[in-house]
């Protein structure tokens, strides 16, 4: 599998990353294809009849009880906000 320039551009757009077409696009295309090629080597392993594994450990998810023990610190939540109005985050207007 190998990505064409249009697909790379589309992935960048979905991730809101600006690409310089002359320089960055070919470089990223090459890097991404190298990664995909590396991962594709896994296809050589025969997994006939082997159950898919979701992680390195055979354990189920731990659950917590339904208690409120977090939140209540808007100042910390907003500490890194580029802009705020009152206790709201303020972002460039999204037009629907």
């Amino acid at each position, binding site marked *: 599998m190998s990505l064409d320039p249009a697909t790379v551009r589309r992935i960048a757009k979905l991730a809101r990353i600006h690409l310089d077409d002359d320089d960055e696009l070919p470089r990223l295309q090459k890097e991404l294809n190298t990664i995909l090629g590396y991962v594709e080597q896994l296809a050589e392993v025969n997994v006939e009849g082997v159950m898919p594994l979701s992680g390195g450990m055979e354990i189920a998810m731990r659950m917590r*009880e339904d208690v409120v*023990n977090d939140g209540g610190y808007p100042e910390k939540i907003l500490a890194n906000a580029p802009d705020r109005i009152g206790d*709201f985050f303020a972002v460039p207007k999204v037009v629907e």
Partner: protein
Amino acid sequence: MSYTIEGATGPWELVIGLEVHAQIISKSKLFSGAATDFGAIENSQVSFIDAGFPGMLPVINRECVAQAVRTGLGLEAHINLVSRFDRKNYFYADLPQGYQISQYKHPIVGAGKIEIQLESGDVRTIGITRLHLEQDAGKSMHDQHASKSLVDLNRSGIALMEIVSEPDMRSPEEAGAYLRKLRTIVRYLGTCDGNMDEGSMRADVNVSVRKPGEAFRTRCEIKNVNSIRFVMQAVEAEARRQVGVWEAGGTVDQETRLFDPTRGETRSMRSKEDAHDYRYFPEPDLQPLVLDESWIEELKCSLPELPDQKYTRLMRDYGIPPYDAAILVMERSTADFYELVVRGRDGKLVSNWMLGDFFAGLNRTGRTIETSPVSANNFGYLLDLITDGTINGKIAKEILEIMIDTGEAPRAIVEARGLRQVTDTGAIDAAIAQVMEANADKVAEYRSGKEKLFGYFVGQVMKAMSGKGNPALVNEALKKKL
């Protein structure tokens, strides 16, 4: 008779499927310990997890899982003992993680069904495809500032159930009935408050049209419709639009649309062009969700009686007709009130008075059964006063009005206002004599064969007795005297 839209080329059938997002009732969020109360001060119920801070790890809330299982059981659905979480990636200002943790290929609940009852009395079964758990996003406000959108993350991370139906509905009425029934079920179960005004239940509506007997044609998805009435309107508006497109020789594009209730039409949401490219992949921070069969059994045993079961039981136990039972079970609180009152009383008498004058009175004063000033006890005492002949039906209506306005007990109202029914034949005879004397001409007419006048006399006598005469005794005495 099936519902169709008549086009220039003949009738068109509708095909409708619903995806309902129902906010789960829980104290804390799906993956964090922040609170979930509606209407809190902005960003006061946000943890570092909900705000997408780096390095934070989600831990699932057991109660949210239980709520999803309960809902699945209420939909008679298959519960998957192993389910998984995936990341659904998209970019938006109120999604701080840049992805929503959802369940894609392995949802917690599989196929189930809902029975809906239509106006015609017909019952239809609508298939449920699946129910999965996911996080809600934050809330953006676009109308508070000239050049900025404001973001509140209090909703971010609250647990949602996405309940997906099969494309089994064929008319706006069926879509409305399905949503109403689903809301009734989750309210009974206590898994979602079903409050569409506050956005705790919202629907995405999939609509397509076809000629009878055809396979499915392309569908459009109408996003975020927030009332049952709007769902029904949106279905019809969108179906009519699609019929127009096909009949003009065009093709319907699969796209996301918005319903505009003021104009009664749907329009394309171009901003969602890339919306379906979510690049799902397994959530690496969470292991599979594995459920214990005995826990599911426990949850099953603790389920309340569901609306369909209650409907059948009310008809059987209290001898009320299907129509009455259907209305009584729509809200659990209504059915509970009915059952408190009906104990030791006549089932039909109670449902008649409840669904008639009592509901009308509550509506008039903008109240519900939960905020009713009339207690179940007092409502029952009022009916007892009718049954034992203390008051007649007409006076009972007046008393009920007073009870709704003041919350007073019926017997106190009867005594204070002297509304006790007059069964004293002497008093009735006196009133009749007075009316006959004042209407000698009409008495003559009646006696010469104009029997229709009998009702007039009854009315006059009741009026002379301030409405308090016992109707049966008045009738009987009048017949004799005339």
